């Protein structure tokens, strides 16, 4: 009998571990202005979902008494450093971990202080979802726009706007609605079209973990319900295989493995991969692992690939597959830059640039800066701390990258000041730099004429190429099916769209391909108007 009970318990445990192992992970970021109540909100999420230990509550209660703040101050559960406890504000990124029956969460709690925008960018770089907090009494502030623009720039796929302190705004539907309308418009300008608006009170707990009875006019879920159920979309990375080589493992003469983290896509034993910069091809012989070789691996697994041929590959090289959208390989490119150093960006300085597993030196020429008030662009030659702008980067060696919108891992870099060793800037790569010395007509002029960039679009079948030619023509594009690579390149240079057929390339409905071309920044989405190429 006892044995039976034990084995029953064991199977219950096994079941528990099984569900636990299937649980997924949502990384989220909270951002808002000073005193919007971020720390209190996180404290509330942890406290009400029973993810705080008793001794931590006691410690917070003790500190609350020291500060004579009345009832238990939930923000003390998260404010970690002495200095900020003394000042009563959060000054750095803090990470918090909690789990519910459905999902595990990592929260980056980031500061609202203007001078700490760099920390917000840090939290945003790995987030799947952002919570932008707005104080119901104050409405949309410049900081709210700044935070939303950083979220958009860093490509956070989902956004929740939590309108907080509803208890101090009489739980009034009008207040909520007014802010929702105003901020939706700002988000639309930034290209964020999927924001979810929730009225909450972190202090009283209304609509944070449980739905609130005080706002019967609101029919949506509580914040936690939303976080538990929202589908996770890891930066809609394209599914082409990319793996920057971190190190070459050669334990003995019989084995040479390329270790790295898969940035996107999947790989199987037998697949053909191409190496950059050499452009040599080989097949994957095995995916070696301590627990036994893998048949298949996918992003973001950390793997070791053995290839059938001995190619000359070293740290910083890129393995990829899929020629339809091969990575860019160039030393000159455009990038959005966020500046994080008190010393302004110096266009004459050679910064150390780290991109995937590659370290090069680079000069950064600013073209324009984003005006955070208007969200418009203005011309600029440098960036001060916390400013954001578009630059042309010239690196000492080619980098192998995809546009950041398509691939966060292969499209991002950091800039290090070689004198102070500070991490001075963060960059999100956009496209090949325009060659201004190319001739009498600039690429920008061509884009202005045609309404799209020049490109070669490769399709799997001739029927599809012809269908696309028609669809593109109907949109007002200059496009034609061509037979030779040479003529394709000529059309591309002229700013037109060349259609070619080749195996294993674009496939599917024409409508889907058109929307892909918009995503890739080749076609401009019509409703985006002149800002269509935004990240």
């Amino acid at each position, binding site marked *: 009998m006892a044995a039976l009970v034990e084995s029953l318990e064991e199977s219950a445990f096994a079941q528990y571990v099984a569900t636990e192992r299937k649980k997924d992970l949502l990384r989220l970021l909270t951002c808002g202005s000073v005193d919007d109540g971020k720390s209190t909100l996180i404290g509330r999420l942890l406290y009400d979902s029973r993810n705080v230990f008793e001794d931590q509550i006691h410690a917070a209660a003790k500190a609350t008494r020291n500060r004579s703040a009345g009832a238990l101050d939930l923000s003390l559960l998260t404010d970690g450093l002495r200095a900020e406890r003394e000042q009563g504000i959060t000054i750095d990124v803090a990470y918090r*971990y909690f789990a519910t029956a459905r999902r595990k969460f990592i929260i980056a709690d980031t500061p609202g202080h203007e001078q700490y925008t760099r920390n917000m960018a840090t939290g945003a770089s790995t987030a799947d979802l952002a919570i932008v907090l707005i104080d119901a009494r104050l409405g949309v502030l410049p900081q709210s726009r700044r935070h939303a623009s950083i979220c958009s720039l860093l490509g956070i796929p989902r956004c929740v706007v939590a309108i907080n302190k509803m208890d101090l705004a009489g739980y009034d539907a009008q207040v909520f609605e007014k802010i929702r309308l105003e901020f939706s418009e700002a988000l639309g300008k930034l290209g964020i079209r999927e924001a979810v608006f929730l009225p909450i009170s972190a202090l009283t707990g209304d609509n944070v973990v449980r739905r609130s009875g005080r706002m019967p006019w609101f029919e949506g879920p509580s914040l936690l319900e939303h976080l538990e159920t929202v589908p996770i979309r890891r930066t809609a990375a394209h599914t082409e295989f990319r793996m920057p080589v971190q190190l070459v493992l050669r334990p003995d003469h019989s084995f040479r493995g390329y270790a790295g983290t898969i940035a996107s896509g999947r790989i199987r034993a037998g697949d053909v991969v191409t190496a950059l910069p050499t452009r040599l091809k080989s097949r994957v012989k095995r995916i070696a692992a301590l627990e036994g070789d893998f048949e298949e691996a996918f992003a973001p697994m950390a793997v070791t690939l053995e290839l059938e041929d001995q190619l000359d590959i070293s740290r910083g090289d890129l393995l990829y597959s899929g020629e339809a959208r091969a990575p860019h390989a160039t030393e000159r490119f455009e990038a959005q830059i966020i500046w994080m150093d008190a010393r302004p960006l110096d266009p004459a300085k050679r910064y150390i640039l780290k991109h995937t597993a590659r370290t090069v030196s680079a000069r950064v020429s600013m073209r324009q800066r984003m005006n955070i008030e208007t969200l418009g662009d203005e011309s600029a030659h440098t960036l001060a701390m916390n400013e954001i702008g578009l630059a042309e980067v010239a690196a000492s060696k080619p980098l192998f990258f995809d546009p950041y919108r398509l691939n966060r891992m292969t499209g991002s870099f950091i800039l290090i000041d070689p004198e102070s060793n500070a991490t001075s800037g963060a960059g999100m790569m956009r496209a090949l730099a325009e060659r201004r010395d190319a001739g009498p007509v600039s690429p920008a002029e061509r884009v202005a004429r045609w309404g799209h960039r020049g490109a070669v679009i490769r399709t799997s079948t001739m029927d599809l190429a012809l269908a696309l030619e028609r669809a593109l023509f109907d949109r007002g594009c200059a496009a034609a099916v061509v037979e030779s690579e040479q003529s394709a390149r000529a059309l591309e240079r002229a700013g037109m769209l060349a259609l070619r057929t080749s195996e294993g390339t674009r496939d599917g409905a024409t409508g889907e391909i058109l929307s892909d071309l918009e995503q890739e920044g080749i076609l401009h989405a019509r409703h985006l108007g002149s800002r269509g190429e935004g990240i």
Partner: protein
Amino acid sequence: MVYTQCVPELSHLQLLEAESMHILREVASEFQRPVLLYSIGKDSSCLVRLAQKAFYPGPIPFPLLHVDTSYKFREMIEFRDFYTRQMGVRLIVHTNRKALEDGAQPFAIGTQRCCGLLKTQALLDAIREGGFDAAMGGARRDEERSRAKERIYSFRDAHGQWDPKNQRPELWNIFNNRIESAESIRIFPLSNWTELDVWHYIHVEKIPIVPLYFAKERPMLVRGETLIPVEQPFIPMLDGEQPKMVRCRMRSLGCSPCTGAIRSDADTVPKIIEELIAARRSERENRVIDHDQDGSMEMKKREGYF
């Protein structure tokens, strides 16, 4: 078509594993003399397993360093010697002999000074003597409030000190490894793991751990809720106090005079996980040393404590 997500999702634990392996590989690639700080605890055991995976089929390409205060549990030292021999890794043991000769002991000089000499000072000395430019450790951000703010690559100045207000921003999975000579970087590959994640990983990976984590009858001084192990002869006893056999285990491992036990029946990893799920107290609570004063962990870290 191309943009639909057809790549399968990894579980929470697989994502954490991949992230940690990525960090270990970066460290091995970019630093001249990295070292793994091995505390013998469960987190260190996970870290060693992750390093085995990261460099398989090659060996772990850096040594392990244990800062031995001489007050560790006997079972910890036995496990350390057995496990590292079995793994075939290089182990460096460092002890602040001078401080011990001068009588460093928690009851004689206080826990703060004792930790300062036998842990912080010893660690800084070992890093300097070994010429290590990167020291990896198993600390997690969920352990303590000041840790929650620490970067994965945590910069230390020439005196081994941490400046929480001047941390380098850390974006994506790109790490700034640049330092001048005498400066160093502490690296925490398990930053994003929680205590429960560590136990799940130990369970699914069948990772060996020190038996002190499992419940059994052990001699303890029972003072209210507190259970004090009696391994060291200098533990002061109250009048007429006698150690009692108590069924208990250690939730985290430190020096035996400063680590309390908890009453427990959990003698297997699944039982420990069940106990943790039911638990309402955090794991460092039984570390006497963290309670010296409010924010004391942060002060230790500023001074160079791991």
